[in-house]
């Protein structure tokens, strides 16, 4: 047989073309960006040498400030300075009120829409605030790598639901970043940690950050990280400890109930300082200026601090129990417990978690940087720089997906801890004669009643062929991609008609809103919208040509008939002839045509890859046979 050259994906590119990629840890309190250069990973500092970027954005009439400068202003200008924005991502006003009122912004009151924070520079959504943080980080990587980034990996808490993940991806889109993957924070930590140690086994990653908590169990074996189970609480973290300490000060300093927003921010900051000092000291003194001009001096002992925070630590033990049960393991089967997130610096947290799992936790990695490093390693592989790397991350769906059924109940379609990507189909029928549309309410969560779960979206199916009631068989397919994001498609089975699906996200932004924001942001940057769009399409077309050419060279002749080869060649030349033109629509059409033509080659290459995998060969061994 002639040479069947199927190489590993991403091996086709010219050897010298190193792509620019970065890993971003978009944290509640602090954010970080890391890159891989010459096989080494590093987090990037700003011009002052600071690696951690405080996740704080201040909006003034003159400018948008991000990081330390904004943080410094957060006490004197609380309404225009957004802190801990991650807790607002993908959330409704009701959710935010539910989290407690430690942070008080002025929200514009429009129930049922994305909450908007009123600032001196106008109303902003959590997505826009996060986009500012991302832009500021990306700037560091651009400066260091000397050019635009080809792609980034952004980490999210494993327990983030679909709305929170979508909001994160939207923020990246607003920041002009190409997201290669949303990566779960504990998985990123495991990558950074596991690759260092090269130890195989089952790990627990306990991640208590500024505002989110999750715990995951992973198995690492021959380059594959397999998440077995994950659980958590996306509104629990170090912020809550600061809040408890602020309450403690209010009670002990007899500050009464009349706490204005500046004082509240001041108290939170004092709480944070006390918390940090108590990790190394046994007693810490406090000096608080009361609004009436008098001062209060007090002290807090570590033992009392621990008594205060024990209930919060208890709340993290419930998910710990659940992951063990979901993974079908008991603590004796765990090789190591790895602590991630700034809040795991607290000795009491380490002590309690060590007690729960029956072994001292692993704490000798920098809990702040490990997530960004893991993301950078993955970004480097996904962008195509590390071609022969076998590393693969297999994640799970953190929360069950389901639909609303009769009586306000949720019927689960995909269960939590199902490995992703995942797809499940469910059949529906019409209940009226001639019905041509129907609505499906998609939910995420574990509870039985619709109202206790998170409403993700309402899908409207249109174009159902008119039939008598109950005759139509509409198959709705729910698909969760590797990022944990949901997609829905529908098909009427008896006639084979594809129904169109219109998504109305319950929270978050519609595509139209994102487009508008992109236009607005470019209007500010005085950039030509049309030119940018054209450039994007050209880049995409070039990418498409490169990918299809590579796929064709690696097996096109063997896997396609001469007719198919001819069709593929002509679709390729059509796009090649067009992609440097200025006609966005024509380029897009030629690109779609090429992708359609390339689909059967893609499918056959996949079959070859599977056969090779199971016969114990690496795919690239096939070249030369």
């Amino acid at each position, binding site marked *: 047989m002639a040479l069947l050259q199927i190489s590993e994906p991403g091996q086709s590119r010219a050897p010298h073309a190193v792509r620019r990629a970065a890993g971003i840890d978009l944290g509640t309190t602090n954010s970080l960006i890391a890159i891989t250069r010459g096989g080494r990973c590093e987090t990037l500092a700003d011009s002052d040498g600071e690696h951690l970027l405080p996740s704080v954005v201040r909006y003034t009439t003159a400018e948008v400030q991000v990081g330390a400068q904004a943080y410094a202003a957060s006490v004197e200008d609380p309404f225009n300075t957004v802190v801990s924005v991650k807790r607002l991502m993908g959330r409704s006003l009701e959710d935010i009120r539910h989290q407690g009122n430690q942070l008080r912004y002025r929200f514009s009151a429009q129930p049922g829409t994305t909450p908007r924070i009123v600032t001196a520079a106008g109303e902003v959504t959590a997505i826009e605030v996060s986009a500012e943080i991302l832009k500021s980080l990306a700037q560091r990587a651009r400066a260091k790598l000397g050019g635009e980034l080809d792609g980034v990996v952004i980490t999210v808490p494993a327990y983030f639901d679909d709305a929170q993940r979508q909001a994160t991806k939207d923020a990246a889109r607003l920041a002009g970043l190409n997201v290669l993957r949303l990566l779960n924070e504990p998985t990123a930590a495991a990558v950074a940690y596991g690759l260092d140690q090269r130890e195989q086994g089952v790990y627990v990653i306990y991640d208590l950050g500024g505002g989110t908590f999750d715990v995951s169990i992973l198995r690492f074996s021959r380059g*594959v990280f397999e998440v077995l189970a994950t659980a958590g609480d996306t509104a629990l973290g170090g912020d809550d400890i600061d809040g408890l300490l602020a309450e403690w000060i209010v009670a002990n300093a007899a500050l009464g109930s009349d706490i204005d927003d500046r004082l509240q921010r001041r108290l939170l900051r004092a709480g944070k300082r006390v918390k940090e000092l108590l990790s190394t000291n046994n007693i810490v003194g406090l000096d608080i200026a009361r609004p009436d001009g008098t001062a209060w001096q007090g002290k807090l002992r570590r033992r009392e601090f621990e008594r205060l925070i024990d209930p919060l630590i208890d709340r993290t033990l419930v998910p710990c129990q659940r992951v063990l049960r979901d993974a079908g393991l008991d603590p004796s089967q765990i090789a190591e417990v790895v602590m991630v997130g700034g809040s795991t610096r607290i000795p009491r947290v380490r002590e309690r978690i060590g007690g729960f799992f029956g072994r001292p936790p692993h704490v000798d990695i920098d809990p702040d940087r490990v997530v960004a490093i893991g993301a950078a390693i993955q970004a480097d592989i996904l*962008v195509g720089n590390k071609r022969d790397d076998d590393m*693969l991350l*297999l994640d799970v769906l953190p929360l069950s997906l389901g639909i609303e059924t009769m009586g306000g109940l949720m019927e689960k379609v995909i269960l939590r801890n199902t490995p*992703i*990507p995942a*797809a499940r189909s469910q059949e529906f029928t019409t209940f009226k004669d001639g019905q041509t549309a129907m609505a499906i309410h998609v939910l995420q969560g574990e509870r039985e009643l619709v109202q206790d779960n998170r409403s993700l979206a309402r899908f409207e199916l249109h174009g159902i062929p008119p039939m008598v009631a109950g005759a139509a068989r509409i198959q709705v397919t729910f698909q969760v991609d590797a990022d944990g994001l949901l997609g829905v498609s529908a098909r009427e089975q008896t006639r084979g008609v594809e129904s169109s699906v219109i998504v109305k996200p319950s929270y978050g932004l519609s595509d139209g809103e994102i487009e508008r924001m992109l236009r607005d942001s470019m209007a500010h940057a005085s950039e030509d919208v049309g030119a940018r769009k054209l450039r994007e399409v050209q880049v995409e077309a070039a990418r498409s040509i490169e990918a299809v050419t590579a796929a064709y060279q690696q097996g096109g002749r063997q896997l396609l008939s001469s007719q198919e080869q001819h069709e593929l060649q002509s679709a390729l030349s059509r796009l090649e002839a067009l992609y440097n033109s200025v006609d966005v629509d024509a380029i897009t059409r030629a690109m779609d045509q090429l992708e359609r033509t390339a*689909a059967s080659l*893609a499918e056959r290459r996949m079959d070859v890859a599977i056969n090779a995998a199971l016969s114990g060969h690496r795919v690239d061994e096939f070249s030369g046979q």
Partner: protein
Amino acid sequence: MSRLAKNDFELFDIPPALDIDLDDLSRRYRMLQQAVHPDRFASSGDAQRRIAMQMSARVNQAYQSLKAPLTRLRSLLEIAGVDVSSATAALDGEFLGQQIELREELAAAHDRIELQRIRQSLSQACAMLFSQAADVHHAGDLAGLHVLYNKLQFMYRLLEELDRREETL
């Protein structure tokens, strides 16, 4: 044949049986995902990535189904052409009587120790049914296999009820 059309056992290239080597299964799972996962095609074209996602989802689903003995048994029945979702095999009175007793026992249990004891006896009963199922499958007795599948479904429902009770304690 396209890999999407193959049954779970064919996809993993293992003989259709109730007794399988779970370590080998998970090894095959990792090898398959290393070949098809969308992350392996992050810099490929849209078509290739879409197919990778479909294949990866299919491999995940087959793995989930092969990994757990009850769904593995179900797959065996489906491959043999038995429609397990609509038809239910007739169960003997003795078994149904036992079920009622077990249910009452479960309802009367009020502490973890008792629940733990019930769990142990349920697990033993399941193990026995599975071992019978393996023999019956080997002998090619589909009707017998179907009966055992339905009995195991009853047992699993009891186990789920047990989980719920344990959580509310």
